């Protein structure tokens, strides 16, 4: 089986491409590392305080004084983007990690155990998904107040049902495979079935799902901040920066372009990295 698996992994991706794959993956990793460093050290490098109004003009263009222009109040965009990295990168990574871990664990467990456990868990998560996220966000603010951990958990709660549903669908399919049936007949535990037989086989799609879910979280973050949940002014995450400067779009203001570019580079590189990861990971898991 190991042989055919390796064959299959190699077959659609000729070795010639394999090198470029790694290059793309490495590029992705470099960009992620870059933003991670900015998230840690960015605030030390910022030329101005992110909340300080330093320019009488607004939506001003790039200049020697303000490298990335100024925002709708005349605040320095470079400083604001450096500061926003901390929120966007940190919160999104934490939230997506929780979401996918919880979703996959629950999904696999439900698929392997099946029966009533599966049904009850699925219905409960459907019910969670049934609460409109606006209502959910407002309830969270009203009930437990607003802080960064609450924001991370809220994001995770919003996306877990989706991650669960997708992981479960994948796992249910694998669960019917002969080798799983054989393993079950051998008397293997649920834990073994889930981690050794199912997990390696659903990892590819799960990671693809993680990449997309990461993007959603990055974007939804700003919406929740506007509900008053999480990042508080004068700080803002990148999505929030785009949102608050949207009026500058018709003027082509850098204040709306650069945060969007920052979001795009981060999300694209995360996905580029993930897309080029599975071959290696799968090799290791066997």
């Amino acid at each position, binding site marked *: 089986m190991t042989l055919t698996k390796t064959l299959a992994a190699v077959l659609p991706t000729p070795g010639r491409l394999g090198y470029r794959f790694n290059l793309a993956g490495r590029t992705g990793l470099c960009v992620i590392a870059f933003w991670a460093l900015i998230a840690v050290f960015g605030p030390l490098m910022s030329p101005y*305080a992110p909340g300080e109004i330093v320019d009488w003009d*607004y939506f001003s263009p790039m200049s020697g004084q303000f490298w990335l222009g100024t925002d709708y109040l005349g605040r320095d965009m470079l400083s604001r983007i450096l500061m926003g990295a901390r929120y966007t990168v940190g919160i999104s990574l934490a939230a997506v990690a929780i979401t996918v871990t919880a979703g996959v664990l629950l999904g696999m467990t439900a698929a392997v155990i099946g029966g009533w456990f599966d049904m009850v868990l699925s219905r409960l998560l459907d019910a969670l998904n049934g609460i409109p996220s606006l209502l959910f966000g407002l309830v969270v603010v009203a009930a437990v107040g607003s802080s960064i951990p609450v924001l991370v958990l809220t994001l995770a709660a919003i996306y877990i049902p989706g991650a669960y549903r997708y992981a479960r669908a994948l796992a249910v399919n694998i669960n019917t495979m002969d080798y799983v049936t054989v393993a079950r007949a051998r008397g293997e535990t649920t834990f073994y079935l889930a981690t050794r037989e199912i997990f390696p086989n659903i990892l590819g799609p799960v990671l693809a799902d993680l990449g997309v879910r990461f993007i959603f979280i990055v974007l939804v973050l700003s919406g929740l901040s506007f509900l008053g949940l999480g990042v508080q*002014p*004068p700080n803002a995450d990148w999505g929030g920066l785009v949102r608050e400067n949207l009026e500058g779009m018709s003027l082509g203001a850098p204040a709306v372009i650069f945060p969007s570019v920052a979001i795009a580079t981060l999300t694209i590189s995360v996905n580029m990295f993930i897309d080029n990861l599975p071959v290696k990971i799968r090799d290791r898991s066997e």
Partner: protein
Amino acid sequence: MTDRLPTNWTSRDDAMVESAIRRGATRRDLLRMLMASGVGLAAGGTLLGSASRAVAATPVAGGSIRAAGWSASTADTLDPAKASLSTDYARICAFYNRLTFLAEGGALQMELAEEIATVDAKTWSIKLKSGVQFHDGKTLSADDVVYSLSRHLDEATGSKVHSIAAQMTEIAKVDELTLRIVLAEANADLPTILALHHFMIIADGTTDFSTANGTGPFICEAFEPGVKSVGVKNPNYFKPEGPYLDSFEFIAIADNTARLNALMSGDIQLAGAISPRALRMMEGQDAVWASTTTVGNYTDLNIRLDMEPGSKAEFIEGMKSLIDRELIRKSVLRGLGDIGNDQPVSPASRYYNPDLKPRAFDPEKAKHHFEKAGVLGAEIPMVASDAAASSVDMATVVQQAGAQIGMKLKVDRVPSDGYWSNYWLKAPIHFGHINPRPTPDILFSLLYASDAPWNESHWKSEKFDGMLREARGMLDEEKRTAIYHEMQAMVSDGAGTVIPAFMANVDGVSSNLGGLKPNPLGGLMGFAFAEYVWLKD
């Protein structure tokens, strides 16, 4: 940006020139004014052209327009008593009439009333115009007015002006076209109060508000809450000159950018509440212009005097010195506003006290006060929300100023949802937003009297209450003004409400729309635009 305009010229200046023309300035005066502001003669000439175009022209009848406000929801209503949002006001102004109308500059005009008379400001006699018809053909009589006004006294109506209406202790029919109103206490402002949107006159016995039966210039053709309202011209309207339009549609576009885009693309001809920052986009466009009016709405920082840390007088003093009013006006409001001096009567009011100077921005002085209050270095939260316009931005301005003197002010942005019932008036330090009111009496009674329902800083002064009552019943304008001047100084000094600036209302107007004038009740001509605007050929 076209070469037609000098580069430092903005729509704001356009608005200034326009208002000068309205005040009757001659071309020579204006050119002198422009020269003084550094605008070349040739450019000045073109500017005058475009500004006078907006003012002087003869109305033309016919056509239809679509206009957009900024708020609509399923709570939209045709019931004047419950009206609360721009969309409601625009709609009821088109379908109903009031007894009186507040026109440009606060001038009071009679609308359904023929004459309002009193000798003691306590007992009022109102005579109605004769021959006014409701849309269903019924003729207006005193019964309709008595019914319309009395409704506000019943709590079950859910009237927004219940507390103002409560002073009318007797509303009685005298004959078919005359009624008598007796007030609990003398109030010289009654004719102005009756010009509020909520006091629109509906037919006697109306309980169903799925459509509107009023006397207004337009007949309600369609009303979908949260979506749109359509009105068609009332052929039997009692005013001979209007309305000019055959029909109008009013919608709401909540998103600022979307509203502006709809105006620029020509999908709508009139847009309310344009963001000051959008003016740059409208500059140099021939198809649209911005109409700016300051009517007295403001966002204020409220520090409750009955709670920590506002109970320390030094803290209040410190905060008042820590507000950089000029920065707020220039950066947050983009210059579209007047600097405020911590009292609610705006420069647009004839009772405004011009001698009362706004407190200077002085961080060192503020620091001194905070030290004395013993709060320097403590973390103090300020509750702000998008529900109170620009409050989040104002809060960051104050926060930054505080950071420079070692004062840790924290901005707590909370949801717009439920802001007015959960945080406003409740949090120790929070922002409020007050809509314009036509008289100082209403402002003070609502906001600063000891028993005021919205006493934002919980400020109490018996002397102030006494002066408020005294001025209310006074028919002598000069004495009344003097009292109001003093009261403004008392509020500015004593209350915990910091009012940094009065905000201007900006309406985006298509250049083929004529007849729009500023109005003291708000933008879009106090929402009564439909009756007065007309389409150019």
